[in-house]
């Protein structure tokens, strides 16, 4: 230790450095303050943007607290029909009631066992109560729970019923949307179940590993697109041959061969000499295989990216990603398969619906949504969801050209059952072969009406039914008829 005087001389030395010391402290103060500002920003941002996601986590006990205070809210269809509500039985026990039983099984889902559908997506709103304070106070007085907020969906009960009845006992999926807004009007997936009985049938469903009842086929089902994919192949062909595609022609003799591989037209049809438009309308496999062989693979790859193949979809439902393999190494055989929607290509019905809807909406994709608004028990809007655009999947010209092609499918092609009605429809059929047995195929239809100013967009898949034109188109007709009041 140094003694007094020595220290004094030293501190005189340091004295001249006094200002730098203050500057250093100042600098550190700033750094610390900035770090804290960053942390405050982070906390605020994280807490406010993740509130719903965290609330829905099954490890979060706050859900239970809220449910002990609030009665789970009611879910309504667009026309105010009740789709799900919580009632109290004679013993004072709460139960969730689904007035339409199986009809909305996948889209509305259930509120227990991990939750599904709107019950899951809107869980945050359903378990919160924004009831007016006066109502809460009077409920407090009698010891009742507060009413949870009410969720209004975009669903149309009548269309849902028509679609479900039309699909009948087949497995499959039907989705109906509004191309100009993205509103989901109908979402049917079969086989279905009664959400009111979910607790009873749960163990059985889980035990049966092969059961796909809980799978929402509209978003999670993956199918070979079959001829519906010709929309994409045609789009790419027009892109790559903007001047000359109308002059395309091909001599179809029912088969096209490349080495060992051979593509045939559906059910052995022979289309003879056909142009581009007719190849599409008649869904000529050999002609499209021929078109596929001419395509530049890397450009094609880019188009598929834009159309959201192998990509995340802008959806609030759980879904499966569509998959396709096209790159510079894809061989001729695979290119032929890809261009007619066979091979390893898989697509979900909602993805096909989104592509179709963007054709109907001049190339712009509106994000599909099912929750329209949330209201409190007094009918005050707590939150409303408005249509939002994902962006352009194709240009306006592309969309117009595809629309023309799809109109021809109805007027002179495979969807002729939709021709000559009070409304004009446009679409594309598909008969997607699957499995090893020749001739087994899923029936597809995707299209919209009215063709000149599309109001609804319908996508249908019926598993193992047969030809799209024979099985899917009639269902589309019933849905269009119901919508346009035929």
């Amino acid at each position: 230790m140094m003694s007094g005087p020595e220290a004094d001389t030293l501190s005189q030395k340091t004295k001249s450095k006094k200002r730098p010391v203050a500057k250093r402290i100042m600098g550190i103060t700033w750094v610390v303050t900035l770090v804290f500002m960053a942390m405050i920003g982070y906390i605020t941002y994280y807490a406010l943007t993740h509130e719903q996601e965290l609330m829905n986590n099954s490890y979060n006990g706050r859900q239970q607290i809220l449910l002990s205070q609030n009665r789970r809210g009611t879910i309504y269809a667009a026309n105010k029909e009740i789709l799900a509500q919580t009632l109290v039985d004679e013993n004072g026990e709460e139960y969730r009631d689904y007035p339409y039983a199986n009809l909305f099984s996948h889209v509305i889902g259930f509120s227990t066992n991990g939750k599904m559908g709107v019950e899951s997506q809107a869980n945050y709103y359903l378990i919160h109560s924004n009831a007016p304070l006066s109502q809460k106070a009077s409920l407090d007085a009698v010891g009742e729970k507060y009413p949870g907020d009410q969720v209004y969906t975009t669903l149309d009960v009548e269309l849902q019923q028509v679609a479900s009845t039309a699909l009948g006992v087949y497995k499959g999926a039907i989705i109906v949307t509004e191309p100009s807004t993205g509103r989901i009007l109908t979402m049917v997936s079969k086989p279905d179940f009664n959400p009111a009985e979910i607790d009873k049938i749960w163990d059985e469903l889980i035990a049966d590993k092969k059961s796909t009842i809980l799978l929402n086929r509209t978003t999670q089902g993956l199918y070979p697109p079959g001829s519906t994919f010709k929309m994409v192949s045609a789009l790419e062909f027009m892109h790559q041959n903007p001047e000359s595609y109308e002059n395309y022609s091909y001599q179809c003799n029912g088969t096209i061969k490349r080495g060992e591989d051979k593509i045939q037209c559906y059910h052995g049809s022979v289309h003879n000499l056909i142009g581009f438009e007719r190849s599409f309308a008649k869904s000529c496999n050999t002609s499209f295989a021929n078109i596929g062989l001419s395509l530049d693979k890397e450009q094609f790859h880019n188009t598929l990216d834009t159309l959201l193949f192998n990509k995340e979809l802008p959806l609030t439902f759980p879904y499966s990603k569509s998959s396709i393999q096209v790159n510079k190494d894809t061989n001729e055989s695979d290119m032929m398969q890809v261009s007619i929607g066979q091979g390893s290509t898989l697509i979900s019905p909602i993805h096909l619906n989104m592509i179709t809807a963007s054709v109907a909406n001049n190339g712009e994709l509106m994000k599909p949504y099912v929750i329209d608004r949330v209201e409190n028990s007094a009918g005050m809007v707590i939150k409303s969801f408005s249509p939002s655009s994902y962006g352009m999947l194709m240009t306006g010209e592309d969309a117009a050209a595809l629309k023309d092609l799809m109109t021809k499918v109805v007027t002179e092609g495979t969807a002729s059952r939709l021709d000559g009605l009070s409304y004009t429809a446009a679409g594309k059929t598909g008969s997607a072969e699957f499995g090893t047995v020749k001739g087994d195929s899923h029936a597809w239809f995707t299209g919209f009406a009215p063709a000149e100013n599309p109001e609804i967009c319908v996508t249908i898949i019926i598993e193992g039914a047969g030809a799209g034109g024979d099985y899917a188109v009639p269902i589309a007709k019933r849905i269009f008829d119901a919508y346009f009041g035929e």
Partner: protein
Amino acid sequence: MELYISEFSKYAIALLIALYTFESFAVFRFHTERRREGVYVRQYIYMFLIHLCCFVVICFETGNIIYLFFYAFQQIILFAATTLYKMIYPTCNRLLVNNMCLMLSVSFIILTRLSEDKAKKQFVIATLALIISLFVPFLIHKIRLLKHLKWLYTLLGVGALAVVLILGQTTYGSKLSYSIAGITFQPSEFVKILFVLFIAASLYKSSNFFDVFNSAVFAALHVIILVCSKDLGTASIFFMTYVLMVFVATGKYIYLFLGFGGGSLAAYLAYSVFRHVQVRVQAFIDPWSVIDSAGYQITQSLFAISGGGLFGLGLYKGTPESIPFVEADFIFSSIAEEMGLIFAICLILICISSFIMFMNISMKMKDKFYQLIAFGLGITYIFQVFLTIGGGCKFIPLTGVTLPFISYGGSSMLTCVLMFAIGIGLSIIREEERELQKLKKKKRKKRNKAEEVALSEEGDLPDAEGESEYDEWTGSGYPQSKDEI
């Protein structure tokens, strides 16, 4: 009725704390304690109302009027503390007094809500701590010997930590505490103060390489013992304090680089050697994948922080019991849940304002020993706040240290009160320095005039800066006299 009160109070509390926070920064606009009087009075009113509001809600929610008596005791103690500091030390910095009392009142509120028993214990310790703390400024001021006790500080510090390492009780994998006569101490808390005193005493006279090296050996000893006790949070606080104090004392960036370089290396080594560090880091990177085990605490904490919204769920409306150790390590999360994000963020800002006040005092101190103490305590304090809040919201990995003043824990509470009391003592010394300087300046002016008259050709006129240029916040315009005080 009850509903209206709890709803109304949510907004009232948020508004009041926002006003308080505003005042705790507005205080820096004024340069003398006398001018700050208005700020302090307003702060006290807001503090009083927040405390009252919360306890009215607590009484309504629990249906137990007895809490009002508890409230009354708390209010008496807090009122006494603010008044006594003002009376005994008229020149002391009362922002620190107010902030300390506000944080204590928040601590009482949230602990009463979490566990009545713990709140009572905390109250008793806080009362004792406040009484003891009243003597601290006096002692700091009067005992000039403090500068020369560096070996005592380090001996006591290292000794206390070593005793815990060897004899201490293991709580959840870390050796933290030691019991004497039924009272459990957590010595690492008190050693924080000794440590700062040690470094300040080592470096205030000179800070050449030898001095730094000398202090580094003993600083390292502290840190190593703590690492061996597996108390990594406290170890990193000591480390950070040391590196920054050395940097401020020497002004050499090389020490900063060496320190943080070595620190990173040590962190990497700790990560590869200690299993529990790896677990913590994993829980930081992706707590959701280990939500059942290592990520449980942090995810529950995140649920709480995001679950309250801006105004909180209201006291007793959340689920703080779902977070393990909520009253110590995660108290911030439960405050955010029940009292709201606005309240929680205002608390952080109040911590920052206390820190800035520490730095402000430090910047203006003429005596380097005191200057380093003010700086070191400020850093120790704010870094601990950073570790616990940052850890609880997944901004940084979790280390498990307490939130100063607010978390449950006697040693932690006592240490924080003492730290602030030392800060308050230093503010008094600084005021004195300033008064002295004023006086000197006056004298000098007189003398200069006399000299000018006598020998006007003799140059080197000392600075004659006026008090008005004495800018407190920026620290600029500092008088550069060569005279020693």
